[in-house]
């Protein structure tokens, strides 16, 4: 570590390191673009709050994260930013004055770093963007000249390959000049909080956290409702849901989880209603309670992890019955996805390992043996009359526990 640092001192100054971040869709916005940009900057700052002091500024579709001092945790910052919605990619970059000599010197240092992986020979190319039109050379010329300097400096170790190079040196000439080799993927989407608020029904399975993520990606803030059937499910199952909410919350600035005591309603359904319809009736009750939570928390839609045909309660007919219970739009971002596709996203966003912990969630405890796959709304409505849902749901709503995740 010490040695490495000493070496760095002679070459590039670590203090001249910044993070470049690029935006996607926001750039297409019209006159309200600046509200999105401000929101994104705020979200970036929030994401970086644990990394140390830094400045976040933006100009011309680029965001610049400039560390205030040496204690800034650069790698952690990269990791944090790679989860911020609204950014499409990020690059750790070095900055220097927009003078040819400085750029050339920096490019040499960056190339030297890129060549430290132990290979004998490297191929490279240079891509230049010149935003600063007063700079005397145009982009292809800069690439060619700097490329020449590098070949001269590293002699036989380096060769140009424009089709399949080992590394690319990117040079962006603006008021200052930025040189980098890495472009890391960021999630895209819209800045969190720029598109209102939704209320996620979260169960503890694989799907609902992914559904939450998908909507959050479009800039929607989230809160979550969880239906808790203690003692039929365990406290561990609840902890698991809170953990999932925490993971999804990382992508959308945290979320409140409303834990609804649901045991009595489940028992009443179990006791009074026809077994084959119990799941649909339960889902409808969940929707009604979730809608009340949504209104209370200022959300304008419900979000579920349902996907057509995945289980009996998610057939087209069952979804029709469930949908009917709420007067609010219900978004189902996974509706047309296969389980494997959902699992892939769950792995990517880090919820999969938690989701598969073996604690039963509220959906599985009272599962009937042969649920009706084609329920009709009229029979469901008829069956629902057998229990006093209004009173029970009022009571459940009163008993809600709110947990900030």
């Amino acid at each position, binding site marked *: 570590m010490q040695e490495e640092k000493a070496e760095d001192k002679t070459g590039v100054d670590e203090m001249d390191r910044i993070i470049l971040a690029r935006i996607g869709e926001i750039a297409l916005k019209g006159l309200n673009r600046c509200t999105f940009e401000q929101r994104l900057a705020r979200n970036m700052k929030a994401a970086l709050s644990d990394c140390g002091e830094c400045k976040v500024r933006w100009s011309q579709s680029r965001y610049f994260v400039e560390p205030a001092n040496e204690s800034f945790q650069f790698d952690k910052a990269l990791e944090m930013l790679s989860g911020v919605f609204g950014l499409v990619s990020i690059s750790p970059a070095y900055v220097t004055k927009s003078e040819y000599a400085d750029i050339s010197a920096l490019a040499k240092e960056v190339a030297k770093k890129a060549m430290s992986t132990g290979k004998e020979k490297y191929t490279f190319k240079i891509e230049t963007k010149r935003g600063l039109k007063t700079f005397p050379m145009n982009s292809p010329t800069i690439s060619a000249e700097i490329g020449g300097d590098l070949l001269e400096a590293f002699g036989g170790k380096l060769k140009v390959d424009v089709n399949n190079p080992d590394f690319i040196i990117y040079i962006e000439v603006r008021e200052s000049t930025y040189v980098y080799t890495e472009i890391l993927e960021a999630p895209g989407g819209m800045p969190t909080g720029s598109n209102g608020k939704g209320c996620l029904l979260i169960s503890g399975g694989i799907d609902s956290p992914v559904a939450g993520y998908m909507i959050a990606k479009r800039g929607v803030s989230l809160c979550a409702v969880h239906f808790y059937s203690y*003692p*039929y499910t365990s406290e*561990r199952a609840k902890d698991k849901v809170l953990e999932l909410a925490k993971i999804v919350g990382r992508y959308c600035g945290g979320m409140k989880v409303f834990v609804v005591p649901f045991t009595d309603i489940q028992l009443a359904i179990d*006791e*009074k209603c026809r*077994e084959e319809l119990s799941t649909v009736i339960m889902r409808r009750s969940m929707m009604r309670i979730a809608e009340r939570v949504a209104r209370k928390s200022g959300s304008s839609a419900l979000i579920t992890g349902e996907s057509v045909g995945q289980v009996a309660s998610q057939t087209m007919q069952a979804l029709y019955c469930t949908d009917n219970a709420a007067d609010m739009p219900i978004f189902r971002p996974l509706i047309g996805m296969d389980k494997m596709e959902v699992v892939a996203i769950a792995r990517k966003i880090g919820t999969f390992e938690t989701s598969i912990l073996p604690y039963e969630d509220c959906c599985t405890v009272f599962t009937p043996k042969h649920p009706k796959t084609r329920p009709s709304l009229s029979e469901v409505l008829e069956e629902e009359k057998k229990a006093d849902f209004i009173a029970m749901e009022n009571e459940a709503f009163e008993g809600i526990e709110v947990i900030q995740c």
Partner: protein
Amino acid sequence: MMKTTQTAKKAKNNVIKRIDILTLFPDMVNSAFQESIISRAVSKDILKINCHQIRKYTTNKQGKVDDYPYSGGPGLVMAYQPIADCIRSVSAECDSTPYVIYMSPQGNPFNQKKAQELVQKENLMILCGHYEGIDERVLEEFIDEEVSLGDFVLTGGEIPAMAVADCVARLIPGVLAEGSAEKESHTGLLLEYPQYTRPAEIEGKKIPEILLSGKHDEIEKWQVKTAEERTKLKRPDLYEIYEEEKLNSQTYYFDNSATTRQADVVTEEMCRTVKFLYGNPSSLHHMGLEAERRLTEARKTIAETIGAAEKEIYFTSCATESNNWAIKGYLEANPRAGKKVLISATEHPSVLETAQSLTKSGYTVGFLPVDSKGIVDIEELKKAVTADTAVISVMHVNSETGAIQPIKEIANAAKAINPNVMVHSDCVQSYGKLQVNAKALGVDMLSVSAHKIHGPRGVGFLYVKDGIRIAPLLCGGGQEKALRSGTENLPAIAGFSVIAKQANEKIKEHEEHVKELNIIFREILTEEIRACNVISSDECCPYVLNVAFPGLRAEVIQHSVEQKGVYISVGSACSSHKKDRSPTLTSMGYNNNVIDGAIRISFTYQNTAEQVKFAAKVICAEVKKLYARRKGRR
């Protein structure tokens, strides 16, 4: 606070009537009791307080009560004769023999609890010393208890005596207005909540709104909450005691086969070791030697509990480690011993999984079937053992049912066929509860864990009979005779040895007590719930009681009763990591309907009959509720 009311009730049976204070300065003491509440108690005839001048009892003409100390040094010592005569004379006046205390910084600390003890003595006599102290022979002859007001020195015992008398007097029923002593500082282990008096607002400072609300329930909750908060902040030592009492009084823990609450003696021993014996037993210097001595002593203590030699005990981190090592280590060191491993069908996963992992190395694993009581069938065993059998592992007491395996018969039968077979027994659930003697059991190896008998986590041992070869588990610094290297966990080992000794000395006593508890539990459950299916037979180890409620789900029962503070475990699935049914009940021939409804109640000698009755009632009530709900289902 609960505690206070109990003690207050007890106090009503036997309450102090008379306090005698023996002093050289009676005027000083008397003046204190002529004011306020104490004088009211005296005038109401609830209490008599008398002061006696010791000087009056001296036989010497000068009225001298003290003399120079024999050992030399400064000051004077109060002599034997006047005090002795004074005590005797005053005692004669009392209705019953007085309880005599002497105020001294060397005594037991005086606190509210002590006051509650003293208020139950009908006659209390307080001797106040002066000068350098009193002749030691007075203490030996007359004093029941020395009491200290705190860690500081005063000129005489008068001020402490006054404090003690005041504190004790106000605990006498009728001295204070009814109830006002109940919630006061220290009585209920908590400091008092904040007090306010009129006006409700002064100089812009308001009293908490809740006090004006008129909601008595809420106010009471607020009082408890604020009392807790300020105790936690100002007297963390008291708060710790309070928290412990609170937890203990609300917890009915019957999951002692999973783990136990670490005994205080163990914690104390571990703290001592951590603080004073922190040397590494391998170090060559004196501190290393001290640590090594403690380690040797612990090993000796533990070896004695199973009738083994010190050199046959290897400390490990847990019984899972012991079990893994026993089987794998033996086979590694004895590659020509055979290719077959026999285990019972009801082994703990740490034996089962170990055996199964050996199939990859070319071993075959045979399972010894059990009968309906969960006992290994000796005839089946005889059929299974061949010249190719290297290892037999059978647990002593089954953790799920308490079934006791006939280890001795198993070992004898197996060795009769193949004298070279290595017999191992997992004694985790029997050690410290039943007699576990390595020779009497006839085993070559046995595994034990500390935390099942109120010892610490992270320590266990493996007994390896002298002459049996085992391969090293960990290579390194050569600890544990180079078979299990790694710096010894001395604090845990020391703590373990303390509880191991204690548990093994009291096996019979504890077993009888637990047997009674087990019977009470069984009876309540079977009487109240007709469907109850008792899986643990009468011959099982009384520490475990497995009962099934067919048709219910054990996990739901468990969560239902935990709301009332009753902790039991599910009878079959062995942990929160695995959802499968464990093979024990299946191999005993039970169907899934029974297995899924099986709960395990496991005891410790610390459980009481009251706890058992409470827990059994709670389980019955919840089970009835669950059965009733179930009827709704078609």
